[in-house]
């Protein structure tokens, strides 16, 4: 009952008031959301950390099946690494365009970032299919279970990032650059760089140390 009353009687809408949150003793809500996202990233580090630990513990448990040196193609992994690093670079340029208020450039650079990410995912799927074809499936050994889980979780994150980025491009073209969309671009760029950093660890621990 209470809820109905105050909802109907509120003649003022948030959008009509400039800058919600300021002047009420509370910090800017968009700034607070970005801060919360940093904390979320810390929790994600814990998830990846757990999967890395599991991989490191189990990577020699090949159960007589193929090991890292038999399976991994370092060249493919290097190409993937360059693609993802480049996408981080284009994502950075997108944020520069955001700060200059250039909406079309921003969307363009985001689109390029997403395209590079999509190629990265395509290569990963291709690699997985190859390995499964050679009989190196998830159920073959503890090493392979840990490999698919670690690398696949990273891939899943990138995929979610892609969907999110596309949704964000739609919002940008509809709403333009506002405090809300600005925060959203900043947050996804944090996410994207974070995945890049995780990938560098994947590349080192899984691929470089694997084929050595």
């Amino acid at each position, binding site marked *: 009952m209470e809820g109905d009353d105050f909802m109907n*009687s509120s003649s003022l809408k*948030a959008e009509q008031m400039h800058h919600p949150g300021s002047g*009420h003793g509370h910090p800017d809500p968009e700034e607070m959301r970005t801060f*919360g996202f940093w904390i979320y990233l810390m*929790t994600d580090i814990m998830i990846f950390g*757990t999967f890395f630990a599991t991989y490191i513990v189990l990577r020699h448990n090949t*159960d007589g099946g193929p090991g890292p040196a038999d399976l991994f193609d370092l060249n493919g992994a290097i190409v993937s690494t360059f693609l993802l690093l480049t996408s981080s670079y284009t994502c950075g340029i997108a944020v520069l365009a955001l700060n200059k208020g250039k909406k079309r450039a921003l969307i363009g650079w985001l689109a390029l970032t997403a395209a590079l990410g999509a190629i990265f995912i395509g290569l990963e799927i291709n690699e997985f299919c190859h390995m499964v074809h050679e009989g190196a499936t998830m159920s073959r050994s503890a090493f392979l279970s840990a490999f*698919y889980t670690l690398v696949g979780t990273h891939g899943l994150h990138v995929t979610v990032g892609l969907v999110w980025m596309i949704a*964000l491009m739609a919002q940008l073209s509809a709403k333009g650059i506002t405090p809300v969309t600005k925060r959203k671009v900043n947050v996804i760029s944090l996410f994207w760089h974070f995945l890049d950093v995780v990938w560098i660890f994947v590349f080192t621990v899984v691929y470089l140390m694997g084929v050595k």
Partner: protein
Amino acid sequence: MLHQIKDFASGFFVTGDPLIYGADASIVLVAAAIVFTLTYFKKWRWLWREWLTSVDHKKIGIMYILAAFLMMFRGGVDALLMRAQLAMPDYQLLKPDHYNEIFTTHGVIMILFMAMPFMFGLFNVIVPLQIGARDVAYPFLNALSFWLFFAGAMLFNLSFVIGGSPDAGWLAYPPYSELMYNPGVGQDFYIWGIQISGIGSLMTGINFIVTILKMRAPGMKLMKMPLFPWSVLSSCIAIIFSFPILTATLALLFLDRYADAHFFTLDGGGNPMMYINLIWMWGHPEVYIIVLPAFGIFSEIVSTFSRKKLFGYHSMVYAMMIISVLSFLVWAHHFFTMGSGADVNAFFALSTMLIAIPTGVKVFNWLFTMFRGRITVKTPMLWTIGFIPCFIVGGLTGVLLSVAPADFQFHNSYFLIAHFHQVIIGGVVFGYFAGLYYWWPKMFGFHLSERIGKWAFWFWNIGFYVCFMPQYVLGLMGMTRRVVSYSWDKGWWPLNFVSTIGAVLMGIAFLFQAWQIFNGIKHFRARRDTTGDPWNGRTLEWSIPSPAPHYNFAVLPEVGMLDDWWEKKQRGEHQRSAFIAEEKLEPIHMPKNSGIPIVMAGCWFLAGFGFVFHWLWLTIPGLAGVAFCMLAHSFHYDTDYYIPVQEIKETEAALWKGTIS
């Protein structure tokens, strides 16, 4: 056709046990009664608008606590069934399989679906009020956290009548929890019930860290913050670092069961001890996660009811933060018997003993706060006083368990069972009860009967010692945990029988509490709290009316020092919000209600149910629904509104009516 349906139903529903049939009937009857009542009184719309879609932290908190009480009932019935089975030797009330299920669900429900929501309920109701905020940092996420918890809890509880309950212990150790040994759906219910509610817990952790760090009233520096928010902060820090480990670990167990992976299996190179390490890297911080807020609650109560500033505020803050960090360095003390060698065991034994130091500091601080204080013994204080000796004994037996060589004797015996029940009931449950009684008038605006409350307290407290003290001795006599029965020649039955009497006393205590609440609701007009400050409190939540208006503070308070409200009262400078001049009022920015959280949690429930039964036709739409809800929320920009000044004035006038006239 009929035959096929019969075939399906006999596997789908749990059959063959009269206890379960009784539960089936009661579930159907209760559900029908709820639907009938809501329809008869035309309350569906009210329920949807005021509660199910609410993003108000106070209402979400109340829903958490209500759910926690339901779960405490379920977990308590499990406990009584176990104690009934163990009361006499060679007793056959429960079959061994059923007994396994009951000790598993008892543990999971009490920790994850009772203690956690009870704790989150208190976080929600009190933290924003104590730090002078109008809501949590992310109200939408807060509602989503609650509904994810609720969906997970319901999914877990469903296993009891559909498919069969998990039976591999509360932490589901492999290899027994693996598909090879546990082919039923019980373990999958376990995984998804905890997984879904775990996401909610993780988000609550993030939410309260940001709330406490960013939303404090002007002037409230961290070291001027009351101790309860400090305890919440330390608990949430442990949440954000430990719950992801739980999520990852259960995901791996799920992959073992669902995708034939080999993380923890005995074949294919898997390593079951890897699971046990990982699960305790979450599990040990988890027990500190639930006990730290209880320490915060006791600190508030001791200070209020002794009419004294808390002794050693700074040391209290540091002690909690140190406990939060140390909790990550002790996990292997749960399995000294793993065989990791003397040096590893020595490290974990020492780090475990270290925790006794900050905990001891806290106990002395509470005692020194009471020393020469003007103590009034109301129910919240009674629980606090009951807690201290109980927790000291529990803590000391913990130190005994931490001695690695001795632990080889205690390991998995009733000595351990008695120890952790003593710290969890004596610390966590007593703490949350103390908090609930302390803040009840603030939450609901009326008092509960002190007389019935005292009966409940004494039944709980005496029942506790009668139940668990014999179990220490039983452990030393060689009785191990999880045994379904024992023979006459063991000589265990007298102590077991006494223990069962204690459990019944605690069951009676719970009934007293239920009676106390019904009695309070019945007489709520006569017991209204018109002061807003019934205990002569010290912190900001007592400066506003009971119950608090939806915006909490008409004007955000300026904080000058610790226990600001108390100090202002001493100087006569305190001002109730009814007297605030109209010019000072400004429109208040508030979040709008949203139906997305409950719908999204429902989609998770369906996806989880589909995973449990390997029904892709249900999993895929469920996950698609989750994704759709997230996108819908992302594209939704009209999420807040302003409360006009006129309405604030009217609300304040109505709330203070009867107090000031």
